[in-house]
Structures are given as C-alpha cells and as structure tokens.
C-alpha cells in the first residue's frame, strides 16, 4: 500500500479512526503484543486555545505507566550515595576512603579533588560539586560511593573517615552583617549581592504625608517538598560521551554546568529530562549529576543516584528567608505618597539563585500600586545554612506578605475599607512601575473587584 493511498485527501476522514481504537489497551497485557500507533482523535478540537483539553500525559499517570527516573534501570547499573559533611563550617584536613573501597559490593569512591572544575552556580560560581578544602554547610557533599546496591553504598559512607578542622560559623543573617562576624566565604564579605531602586524622592514624599507607617516583617525558610526526590542516572560511554537522565527542570543550563564542571564540550553531553515529579524551583540546577558522571567514568557502568527525603531538606535549595523593613507615607485620603523598603535575604551557604530573587523582590517590593517616590535597598547575606535558591515566586510571596499586611494596617488606621484603599492606589493601564516601565495589559483592579464580588465582600462592611 503506497503512502499516498494511506494519506490521500479522499481517505483522510476515515484513516484517522476513533482515538479509542488506536490507543494502547488500558491494561498493558504482558509483553509480546503488537504496539499500534496512537493516532489522534477525529473529534473536532479546534480552535485549540481556550479549551479544557485533558492533559496529554495524565492518562499514563493514572495508569501508573509514566516512567520517572527512579523507575528506569539499566543492565549493570550501580547505585550511588553521597556522604554529607554534618558540620556547618570546617576545613577538610584529610579524607580516608580506603576502608570504604575495600567493602564488598563497593565499586568506586569519589572525592572533591577528582572533579575537574569543582565550582558552579547560575551567577556567582561559588558552589562546589563536592566540598574539597572547605565545608560551608552541614548538607555539603564530601565524598560519594557507587556500589551494587543502595544499602551497601549507604553503609560504605559510614566507613569513610573525614578529619575536619572546625571553623567559626554564623547562622543568623543579621549576625552575619556584624563587622566581626566570621566570614562564610573568606576573603569575600558576607554581603555578596545587593540592589538599589530609586524613583522620585521618598523624603519629599514622607514630608508631605499625613501619616507614616513603619513595620518589620520576617519570613521563614521553607522547602519545595516535591514528592519525587531528586534522581539521576549517568552513563559515560566508551566514546567519552556522557548521557544523563535527570529530574532537572532546566536541561540547557544543566548541560552547560556539566560541561563546565567535567570540562567536556557540549556535544559530548546529552541531558535527557524525564517527566519530573514536581519542581517548584527545587530542581533547576545540577546537584549530584557531575558526581554520578565521574563515578560512571570510573566504573564503566551506569550509576543511579536518588536523594533521600532527608537530603531533600538538607542538601537541596530552599526559599530565601527575608527580613523586610517597610516605611510608607500616605495622604489623608489613603493615597501612598512614598515607600521605603530595606530587604535582607538569608542566602545560606551559596549564592545559587539569589541574584534573581534579589532582583525580583527589589522590583516588586513596592506592590502593584501607583507610588511616585520609591526607594528600595536589598542585600543578600551568606550564612552557614542550607542553600537558598529558586522557589515558586522568587521573593514575591515574601514582599507581598509585607506590603499587603501593611496595607491593611494603613486601612484600619485611616478607617478605610481594605478593598477601597487598594482600589485607590492600584495600577491602571499605562501606569509607571517602580522601574519607570509603562505597564500594559494591567488588570489589578479587575481582579480586586472580581474577587470581592464573588466573595460577597461588600455584603458585610468591616
């Protein structure tokens, strides 16, 4: 049958039989069944945009047929685990892996010294793949083991002796700002990133204000808690080409980081992203991938690593804790005349995504409000704690908690309805943002009215 006949216009209509016939049987029978191609539904689904179309991947999710990284296994595959420092700040004097290497079932051990370029990071490249001379937080990896089973790899970690020379550590960002505070990354100071935003003249605004409100707000360290832990498999083949299956949400960046840390040209690296079991910003950067790659190179076998739930908390990124000082001047009618914000971010042990978080928090901190006079000073501070990285919102949930809490305080003090004071100040189409950008497609007021109306806000006045 030549392809013309199969795809000719005349037969087009009935060639694409009903989707149900073409789909794989719901219950995959035991192997050795003819796999029929899945051809689309004849049903009309146009126009496509705006339709509540069922997702293309959730039929396999519901059947349990979606393959996540941990569901993949390859012949001769080894299992890797990483030994965590367990000390917040120290110099590594000696690592002795001989006893671990002799354990039956252990095939290879890796330490920081074996990593070609032992540093990476989206802006400041201050993060080691495995700590080599220094440890900067308890979750730092110091050595890794590849073994024939995960349990043997875990047992081998206990056989690795590491001699530390403890160093003074600092945990609170405000303490880290003190002149005599221990330096997390000497010789650099503990403030490693900052932003300034200036628009108009806040002092003039405050002078003209009917009332001024000041408050400090603090938000805590939270974790992404994707239900799928980080997982990856690395295979270094005989051509010197590396294939990585990983729960990475950003494979182009991941390949670049692998190229840097392993000193490999980009075409020698293939990063295959799986269906990821939840990211929320927690799986945006490499974690164990270079380690698995080098263990695979040492053993000539694929090496799989799956983080424990404890490692998800201690050895992956978290949301930046914020300390936020807000000073806002309002007119008698409740119009915001000036807003001054100081943000201090607890960056944890490495920079990671701080620059992005700092930038967004600084720009967004004044809120979706028409304010002529804005001044924002934002800085990020190293501490010997878990690494603050990307998490859903990049600083916006933190600053929104501050500016919307203060908005309600101002409304109460001026005896205004919290809805009214927001409608009074909110952006309109064409308003200028704190960075002077003329905003388009602006619907703040529409969202305020829609929510209030659906909630029945005005049925009960405060």
């Amino acid at each position, binding site marked *: 049958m030549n*392809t013309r006949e199969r795809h000719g216009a005349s037969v087009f209509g009935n060639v694409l039989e009903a989707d149900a016939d073409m789909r794989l049987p719901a219950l995959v029978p035991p192997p050795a069944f003819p796999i029929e191609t899945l051809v689309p539904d004849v049903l009309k689904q146009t126009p496509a945009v705006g339709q509540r179309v069922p997702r293309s991947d959730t039929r396999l999710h519901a059947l349990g047929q979606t393959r996540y990284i941990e569901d993949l296994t390859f012949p001769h595959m080894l299992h890797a685990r990483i030994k965590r420092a367990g000390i917040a700040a120290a110099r590594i004097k000696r690592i002795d892996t001989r006893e671990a290497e002799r354990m039956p079932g252990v095939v290879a051990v890796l330490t920081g010294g074996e990593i070609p370029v032992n540093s990476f990071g989206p802006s400041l490249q201050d993060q080691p793949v495995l700590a080599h001379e220094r440890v900067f937080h308890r979750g730092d990896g110091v050595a890794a083991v590849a073994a024939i089973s995960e349990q043997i790899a875990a047992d081998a970690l206990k056989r690795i002796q590491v001699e530390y020379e403890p160093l003074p550590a600092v945990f609170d960002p405000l303490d880290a700002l003190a002149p005599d505070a221990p330096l997390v990354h000497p010789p650099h100071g503990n403030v490693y990133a900052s932003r300034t935003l200036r628009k108009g003249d806040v002092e003039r605004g405050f002078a003209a204000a009917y009332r001024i409100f000041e*408050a400090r707000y603090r938000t805590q360290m939270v974790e992404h808690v994707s239900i799928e832990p980080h997982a990856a498999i690395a295979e270094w083949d005989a051509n010197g080409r590396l294939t990585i299956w990983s729960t990475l949400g950003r494979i182009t960046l991941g390949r670049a980081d692998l190229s840097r840390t392993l000193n490999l040209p980009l075409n020698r690296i293939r990063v295959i992203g799986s269906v990821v079991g939840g990211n929320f910003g927690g799986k945006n950067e490499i974690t164990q991938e270079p380690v698995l790659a080098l263990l695979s190179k040492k053993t000539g076998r694929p090496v799989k690593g799956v983080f424990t739930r404890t490692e998800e908390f201690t050895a992956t990124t978290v949301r930046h804790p914020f300390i936020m000082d807000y000073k806002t001047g309002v007119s008698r009618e409740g119009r915001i005349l000036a807003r001054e914000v100081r943000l201090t971010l607890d960056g944890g042990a490495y920079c990671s995504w701080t620059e992005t978080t700092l930038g967004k928090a600084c720009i967004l901190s004044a809120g979706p409000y028409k304010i002529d006079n804005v001044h924002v000073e934002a800085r990020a501070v190293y501490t010997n704690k878990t690494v603050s990285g990307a998490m859903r919102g990049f600083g916006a949930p933190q600053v929104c*908690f501050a500016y919307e809490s203060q908005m309600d305080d101002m409304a109460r003090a001026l005896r205004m309805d919290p809805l009214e004071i927001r409608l009074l100040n909110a952006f309109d189409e064409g308003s200028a943002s704190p960075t002077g950008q003329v905003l388009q497609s602006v619907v703040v007021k529409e969202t305020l009215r829609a929510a209030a109306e659906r909630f029945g806000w005005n049925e009960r006045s405060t």
Partner: protein
Amino acid sequence: MKRRGRGIACMWYPIGFTVAANASAATVKVNEDGTATVLTGTVETGQGALTVLGQIAAEELGIATDDVHIVSGDTDATPMDTGAIASRTTYVTGNAVRLAAANAKAVLFEVAGKKLGVSPTELEARDRKIQVKGYPQRSVAIGEVAYEAQVVAGRPAIGSASWNPPTVPLDPETSQGKPFSTYVYATQIAEVDVDDETGEVEVLRVIAAHDCGTPVNPMLVEGQVEGGIAMGVGFALQEEIVFDGAGRQLNASLTNYIVPTSLDMPDIEVDIVESYDPTGPFGAKGVGEPTSVPTAAAILNAIYDAVGVRLTTLPATAERVLMAIKQNGSRIASGTSVL
C-alpha cells in the same frame, strides 16, 4: 471560642527572567498526514507544558490538540530552552512554538496557494483544512498539502524559531528600566476561623481572581491556582525549617516538616479574569508562580480581622497566634509605630 475573619491581598508578578536573556527555541514539523510534532527544550515538571504547547501549536496550524505530539527535554534532539522557571513556559516557550508553527505553515501556504489559485496571504488554517479567507468552500485538507509539500515539492513543512522577551537593562544605581516584558495580577480573599483559646487557624474558603492573559487551558490554570494556594496555606500557617545552634535542621522529615493535607485545605473558588496581552501567544501570559504569592497575606489579614492581632512573622502557628492574642488583642501591630 471560634471567631471568623476575612482578609484580602492583591499582587503583581512578572513573566520571564529579570532582564537577562531567557530565550526559548522550538521546531515544528508538520508530518505528511497533517499531524504535527513539536520539539522543545523545556521539561514537563507537572505544570502542563506538554499540553499547553500542544494547544498553541494546534491553534496556529488549525488542527486538533491531539494532532500534535510534543517531544521535550533532550539536549541532543530538542532546541535550547531557558527552562521551566519564572512562569515563562506558556509565554516565552509558547511564543517560540507559535512562531515555529507559523514558519512551517508558511511552507504549506505556498504549496496550497498554487493548488487553490490564490496568494498565500489569502489563506488561513482551520479545522485541519487550509482555506481561502472569506471563502471557506475553497479549501484543501492540511494532510494533502503537507504530503504534496514534502513528497512532490520536496519542501517538508518544518519551521524553527526562537523568542526572547523584549527588556531594557536596569540602571545599576536606580534600577530604572524595563526588566520584564509583561506582568500578571491577582487578588485572593481568605475566610478563616480562629480559635481564640488555642490560637488554631482554620482556613475555610479562598476566593482567587487571577489574570493569566488568555487562558490557553482554563482547567490547567485552575489546577495551578489550587496548587499555589495549598503552598500558600503551608507558607502562612505550617511550614518552617527549624535549626539548632549548630546549623543542624531539626525537622528534616515529612513527619516533622508540616505541609497541608487534604483535611487542611480550604474550599477554593477560581475566577480567571478577562485579560489579553498582545505580546503573548494568542494573548496568553502565565500563572505558575503568582498563584501562591498573595495567599499568606490574605490569611494573615483574615486573622487580624478575626482576633485583632497583627502577626509580622511567618508562619503564623497556633502558638504564635495565641501568644499575640494574649499579649494585646488591641494594639494594631506589634512592630508598627505611628509617627
């Protein structure tokens, strides 16, 4: 005694990276039976990228969503993408996919134009057909055109494109500039019951009005809002990593790090607010991160409305709420001094 309160919070949030280039590239191949395959470097992390990008390509090519298959997340085979981050997939990757589909469609229009005797600019693609604008009777099945383009004209309908949101770098001193190409807006209202003897806060209801530009798939937008609110409830009332004096995490497990279960969730009503952004694919922007931004503020304002205490530190655990009630119950804000 349980005291009820309500709180409102609105927010704005940018779509895409801050100033730095964050391009997405895509390739669309129209197969010789009129179905299509899209290659994208982004990764499906649960947010629905595969479905949304499929709908955008289908819309541009005038075919059904199920006619499109997305190949994603393989640096060997798929073009680069900055990644599933910053709520950018629908807006930036979506634009790249739309432009790539348009480039593929241009090939089809040239072939179809000859068959239908009109200039390619007179054609449109709808319902798996390529037809003359204003005179749909004159049309040809997209499969036939694709087949002819590839097998007869020897020009397979393959289009590639990339897109980067237009921004203006920020002045280092003042941050003045255009850091993002577009923003989305939202308001959430929370209704809570506060037990004034134990401090326990129960979030009863959250109304969420969100702008995402054109909702490419309203069902998935609702899913993002409901998931974001769950994260917001945890952020507001339950979640915190606690350290000891030696920098050790004390609650590094899902037994002791408290995230909301189905019994902790409020009823949620989602309202997708009418909005269109011409810079986005078919007017679409994004919604992934904004959904959890205003929740904590709305809940804390509702606590204030219920029991008259302003908590300025998250999470507002039952202990902190009770201690605040016991301390004053009347002063507006523990930290706020009025000049």
